[in-house]
């Protein structure tokens, strides 16, 4: 299986070359964001993150951060469940020109349509593998909404090197999650005799 190296920000060409099942190593700026952040982006449309998010990546993650002096370090940074952001994410993609969403568990139909319409991908990271992902963080560039949202929900700006992920929803309508759910539904019906 070949692994593609990708440098953020990502171009449309980068995106259309990606298909479900591809393994990637992502480098550049990624911004964490979860429940409070997505609502904030949709409700308030703040301008201060536009540069980081344009053709960039949002990472569904609530990290463990440690402050030593004035410097923040990232102790643990695995993905959180993405589906909770389903009501917001398509609007965020449209508003901020995101190219890439990283999380776990996959997204729903609305996001799948937005990925196709605006040329973006969903990348799967392994839940719980927090040290591996934290070790790809070369530096913490900044943080938004720390006081308002608290450490897990704040939007942390990470510079990462070779962040490993799997394309599980692509810009061509492909979704590994949909395939697995359909397959497991078939087995489910057999198991409970319906």
């Amino acid at each position: 299986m070949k692994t593609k190296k990708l440098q953020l920000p990502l171009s449309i060409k980068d995106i259309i070359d990606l298909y479900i099942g591809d393994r990637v190593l992502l480098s550049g700026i990624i911004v964490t964001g979860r429940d409070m952040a997505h609502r904030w982006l949709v409700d308030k449309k703040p301008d201060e993150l536009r540069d980081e998010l344009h053709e960039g990546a949002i990472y569904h993650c609530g990290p463990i951060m440690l402050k030593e002096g004035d410097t923040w370090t990232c102790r643990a940074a695995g993905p959180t469940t993405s589906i909770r952001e389903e009501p917001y994410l398509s609007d965020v993609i449209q508003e901020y020109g995101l190219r890439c969403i990283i999380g776990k568990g996959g997204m729903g139909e609305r996001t799948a349509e937005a990925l196709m319409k605006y040329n973006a991908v969903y990348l799967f990271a392994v839940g719980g593998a927090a040290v591996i992902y934290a070790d790809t963080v070369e530096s913490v560039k900044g943080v938004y909404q720390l006081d308002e949202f608290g450490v897990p929900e704040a939007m942390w700006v990470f510079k990462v090197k070779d962040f490993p992920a799997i394309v599980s929803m692509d810009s061509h309508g492909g979704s590994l999650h949909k395939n697995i759910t359909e397959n497991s539904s078939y087995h489910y019906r057999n198991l409970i005799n319906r």
Partner: protein
Amino acid sequence: MKKPFDEKAFTLALAECIRQASCELPRDIEQGLHDALSREKEQSTAYAVLETITQNIVLAREKSRPLCQDTGLPAFYISYPRHISPDMIKKCIEDALVLATEEGYLRPNAVDPITGKNSGNNLGEGIPALNFNEWDKSEISVKCLLKGGGSENVSAQYSLPSVELSAGRDIKGVETCVIDAVMKAQGNGCAPGIIGVGIGGDRISGYETAKKQLFRELDDHNEDPKLNELEQTLFRKLNKLEIGPMGLGGKTTVLGVKIGKAHRLPASYFVSIAYMCWACRRKELHFLLESK
């Protein structure tokens, strides 16, 4: 001989217990994940996922860092002798939580549901969750469980009979509930999970019974032969769902099924499922109160 109770030493021992729970996955779970890895083809997505998981477990232990950033809602099950005050134990646990949070072994996870404010130190109303039990040994045992929010969100409780599931008040009905819960969870509980089940009880004791099962080792056997058989049957059936590690498909959807029961009311028949992520972070502290 009884020695005077040293609160500071107890607090530090608790903080170390929390650190170990957060950074060092129990060996039986790690072994279960290695066994799962050996069942998958090398080029498969399931293999890649399990390889990442098993590498991360080693790294976290070596580097003394939380293996998962979601250190969950800290829950403690305490057994203590009569002459020790539960309030004092509670205070020591709270101090240990604050310490472990400051040192970066726990994520601050206590959020006020009305104001949205994170307390910042893992203390809050109902947090930590404490469960006290008096016993006649001259030691304090504290079992700590760190269970992430993703797996808590997919935990479920059913009331039988269920028209929707065509499930009655019998073993077959219980099976259907558990299969349905794991099906609905897909990968969102961080599969392969450990499935704690509580049959009977009320809304609270049902979940409590289910959650307590998560302290059992993967390869143990249920003393109740009927429940033991049900555990084996469900383990086999759930792995036929092919949801796989993290829900990306594969042969291992659950690492284990552990079932307990509690007497129920004539009117109620609950089946409670405590879905535990693969990162089943449990640790027990034995704090001796007698010098030898």
